[in-house]
């Protein structure tokens, strides 16, 4: 059991806290990180959980089979009110422990492998170039979220899954509704609409087998007594559709902001296109777009660095802070596209933006490819790009995990 609401909890650090800068963790988390690797923090509902800011502790805990990701457990912490919505309780793959997790993940792995993603790259480049041409034709100012950052991942995931892109306004709006909801009720409403939509889509795919995309393939593998029931498939479709575009689009947006605010780094990237993959991983590290690497509940007492995480206690791993562990990343708050250079070829890539352990992001190769394409095509096509409003005036998202901006006005 988690600790009940007590007055003692009121003295604890209140989670979450908003960022003051789009690419840096909230000042409060920065203070916390200086005090050690493991902290007790108080949630919206008065419960408390562990917040992990140390890199090695995070790796150990996220790879520990005694930590459960099962959101249907009573003791699983709802770190934000929206995560209390029933639609989130059995969320496919990410919210399941083995063996079900492994079975479903393996059904999808072939579609997300490095080779598969590399084969998709030329089409994504064409798409990005078309969007740049449209922006140039429309002329400044442009909202980069609507014109570029959102359409790229949205079209890519539609094509991969076999969801008609014509419906994009609907599923984009409902995804934002689900991920930015301030209450469980609002999240549930948006989630149900997406669910009904996918239910109809999968019904059509069942009637007309042989269509393109992952969902068509999996619709042919549904077996009510086997590894993939129809409800499983719907849950997987929902998880992929939600996971597939909001994270990546906001990472494109905040990545562009970070590059524009660091002209020296942008110039270094322009001067040497070979730096691109390292620059993307450095941006992923710095921006930590989801702010969180994972949430778990301990199923047994776990001793770690002199502390004991008791069975039933919740754990939240901060990606923005573990990505700034000074023992792993020298000058952790600095943006340095050359970080992976030098002695340690992996030093920039060991960020925990995609999580760690068996739940490490399924879409990470896809996301990296989309980000590489998005940044390179944009800065090549519009070399004079600049923010259309001062940095402080950007309409930033607030409240918790998914960082980002509602709009990103740009000019050239």
């Amino acid at each position, binding site marked *: 059991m988690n600790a009940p609401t007590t007055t003692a909890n009121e003295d604890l650090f209140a989670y979450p806290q908003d960022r003051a800068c789009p690419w840096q963790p909230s000042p409060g988390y920065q203070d916390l990180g200086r005090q050690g690797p493991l902290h007790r923090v108080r949630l919206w509902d008065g419960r408390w959980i562990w917040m992990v800011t140390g890199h090695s502790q995070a790796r150990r805990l*996220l*790879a520990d089979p005694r930590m459960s990701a099962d959101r249907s457990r009573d003791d699983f912490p709802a770190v934000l009110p929206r995560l209390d919505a029933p639609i989130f309780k059995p969320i496919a793959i990410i919210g399941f422990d083995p063996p079900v997790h*492994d079975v479903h*993940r*393996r059904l999808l*792995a*072939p579609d*997300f*492998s*490095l*080779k*598969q993603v590399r084969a998709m790259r030329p089409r994504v480049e064409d798409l990005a170039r078309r969007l740049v041409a449209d922006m140039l034709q429309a002329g400044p100012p442009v909202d980069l979220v609507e014109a570029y950052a959102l359409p790229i991942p949205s079209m890519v995931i539609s094509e991969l899954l076999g969801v008609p892109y014509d419906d994009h306004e609907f599923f984009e709006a409902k995804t934002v509704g689900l991920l930015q909801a301030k209450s469980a009720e609002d999240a549930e409403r948006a989630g149900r609409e997406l669910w009904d939509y996918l239910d109809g889509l999968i019904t059509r795919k069942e009637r007309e087998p042989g269509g393109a995309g992952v969902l068509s393939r999996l619709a042919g593998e549904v077996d009510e007594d086997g590894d993939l029931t129809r409800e499983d498939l719907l849950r997987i479709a929902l998880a992929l559709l939600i996971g597939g575009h909001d994270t990546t689009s906001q990472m494109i947006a905040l990545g562009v902001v970070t590059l524009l605010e660091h002209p020296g780094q942008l110039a270094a990237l322009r001067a040497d296109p070979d730096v691109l993959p390292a620059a993307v991983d450095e941006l992923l590290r710095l921006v930590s777009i989801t702010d969180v690497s994972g949430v778990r509940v301990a199923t047994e007492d776990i001793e770690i660095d002199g502390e004991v995480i008791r069975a039933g206690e919740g754990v939240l791993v901060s990606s923005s802070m573990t990505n700034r562990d000074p023992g792993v990343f020298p000058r952790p708050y600095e943006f340095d596209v050359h970080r992976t250079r030098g002695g*340690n*070829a*992996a030093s920039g*890539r*060991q960020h925990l933006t*995609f*999580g*760690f*352990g*068996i739940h*490490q*992001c*399924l879409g*990470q*190769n896809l996301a990296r490819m989309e980000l590489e394409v998005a940044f390179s095509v944009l800065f090549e096509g519009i070399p004079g790009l600049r923010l259309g409003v001062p940095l402080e005036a950007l309409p930033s998202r607030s409240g918790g995990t998914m960082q980002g901006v509602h709009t990103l006005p740009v000019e050239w």
Partner: protein
Amino acid sequence: MTAVWVSADQERCISGGRCMAATSEVFDQDEEGLVVVLTPQVAPELEDRVRKAAYLCPSRAIRIGDGPTQG
């Protein structure tokens, strides 16, 4: 100097391809997206990068030892 050997457990692999991205000379992915070790006996100049791949592997599927692994 004794040679280093590497093996990878497909049962544990979650197909993220971190090993292949770090050291494509040694690691590959099969049709299912699962890890495949191309050269179990690691050339000395690749040892550092193979250790890095093992460190980056999120599911601890990569084992480094001083001899070939059975089975």
